[in-house]
């Protein structure tokens, strides 16, 4: 307690006269077609993007991709998508999730300006499910896509627990600035963008 009071006292001694908070009104970007923009930027940040008219079509499209075809242990937190072979809720210890090949995650919203998806981990059986699998797929509803980060934070509610903006697969450029995908977390990220299109290109129903 002594340190707390001492630090706060020193801060009060040092801090200048109060200046106003400028607010964040007037900032931001608007896109003619935010969903199309989101789909573009998702690819820019290193993810793959598959557009599908509904969840069933997203499921069919995902099953055609190598990340799904080559996966043995699959967990899905989105009912109806991915054909789970493994229930992460059945293990008590998150360490047992090592070796999970693919996990399908639900997103609360997508952000057009940077391709990020807000993933609320509070209802997941384990916090690690977005980072420990070899690959992840994220289901983003087209009608949840906002233009920019300001709009995103207007909608988000911050209750107890963990949530994140996922902006692509795990990556690093720490060796001579060469981009390498798959540093510690997922080696790939597939965004399944659901709604707002008639059909999924290349996937027969």
């Amino acid at each position, binding site marked *: 307690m002594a340190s707390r009071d001492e630090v706060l006292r020193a801060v009060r001694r040092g801090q200048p006269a109060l200046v106003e908070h400028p607010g964040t009104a007037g900032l931001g970007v608007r896109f003619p077609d935010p969903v199309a923009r989101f789909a573009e930027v998702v690819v820019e940040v290193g993810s793959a993007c598959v557009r599908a008219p509904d969840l069933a079509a997203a499921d069919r499209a995902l099953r055609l991709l190598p990340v799904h075809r080559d996966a043995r242990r699959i967990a899905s937190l989105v009912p109806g998508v991915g054909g789970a072979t493994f229930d992460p809720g059945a293990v008590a210890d998150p360490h047992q999730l090592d070796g999970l090949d693919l996990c399908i995650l639900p997103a609360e919203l997508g952000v057009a300006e940077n391709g990020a998806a807000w993933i609320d981990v509070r209802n997941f059986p384990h916090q690690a499910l977005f980072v420990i699998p070899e690959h992840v797929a994220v289901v983003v509803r087209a009608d949840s896509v906002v233009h920019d*980060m300001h709009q995103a934070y207007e909608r988000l509610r911050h209750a107890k627990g963990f949530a994140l903006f996922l*902006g692509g697969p795990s990556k690093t450029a*720490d060796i001579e600035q060469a981009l390498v995908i798959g540093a510690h977390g997922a080696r790939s990220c597939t965004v399944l963008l659901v709604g707002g299109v008639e059909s999924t290109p290349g996937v027969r129903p």
Partner: protein
Amino acid sequence: MGHAESAALFVRDGARAHWHDQAGWWVRQRRDAGAKAVPDWEDLRERAEAIKAHALSNLAGYLEEFEANATRLGAVVHWARDAEEHNRIVHGLLAERGVKLVVKSKSMLTEECGLNPYLEARGIEVADTDLGERIVQLNHQPPSHIVIPAIHMKREEIGELFHRTLGTPAGLADPQALTEAARQDLRRRFLSAQAGITGVNFAVAETGGIVVVTNEGNADMGTSLPPLHVASMGIEKVIPRAKDLAVFLRLLARSAVGQPISSYTSHFHGPRKGGEMHVVIVDNGRSSLLGQGGFRRALACIRCGACLNTCPVYRRSGGYSYTWLIPGPIGSVLAPARDLAAHASLPFASSLCGSCSDVCPVRIDLHHQLLAWRREVAARGLLPAGKRTAMRLASLVLRYAWLYRLAGRAARLAMRVLPRPVLGWLSGGWSRQRELPPAPEASFRELYRRTRGQP
């Protein structure tokens, strides 16, 4: 050894200095592309500056608000006056729980506090998990850049280091393969560590949450597996509201490496189910800087590294030529506030070109601060004797017009008649890597009088 002397050693290897220069410039160009894609970029910078100025003007209030809200969420908040107290708190938390191995994600604050050697001396293994930090840790070096810790190393050198320490095949220098080797090695440590330590990019007073940003996901691996999460933050990291995050997050990754956002922007609101979360709030000289007038603006820094990448002096002299662990313009204004005598050379490690101030996402007036610190250095009598004498002479010559004219005439004559080695010696370092220009036939004043009559 001051910055100039260390930098002289660095530039001895001309090819390497050039390579380092290009590496930084490449990142700077990525930043430019990222910034240009944002139509309201300059408005964002101004708003970020103003939000930080507001936050610093009510810092004690926001720290108390953050503490109350973080506590309500189930986190335990600790306060440390200095590095020693911070290390003692962190060690206490680990030791009480019998932690033998801790995985740590990037945190310049724990570097500043010397946490790794402190814990290692007490029998706790620390694995740095950011790839760049892991590389320099294995190489027994501090980071040479705040965002790209191993920017000074070539891939072949990292390959050789990994061959020695991780058993990769000799001669392996492919970044993909080297990263994979580090991934495998560190995954074992993530799975066996009993605690994770992270830094804090932003602490939000309104919510009591902290935000940690990485591209690799190392902070997330380190906090979602072991039961204990310790987050170390400087007092200046607190911002008022969650909505303010939008401003800073739009600026941060673009300024750092030109990405629209980092891969993992993690919001921690209290511990995870069955886990523990501790936040250590550290002063260590920051409250004193807060009281140093205009210099306090340096506390707004969000550690993006843009000022390093753009700085012609940083790029050509490398991170290790600075006397403080945060190199580049921002380090050169933070370090003198701690110990002016020890870092008296840093305000001079700049051409004052102002590029650092132009790229800073929170508009810190870096080059003005560097100049102001030079004045402090002179006022405190810390200038080297040579520079002091030269400045006195210059002041004398500039004060008297007749002396100025005489000196000009003498210089023009000397440049014509004296042999080159003598001229080189007289001009100090200036002619070391270039020729002096030919002596003009007359001064500007004389030419003006000849063509236009009396000035």
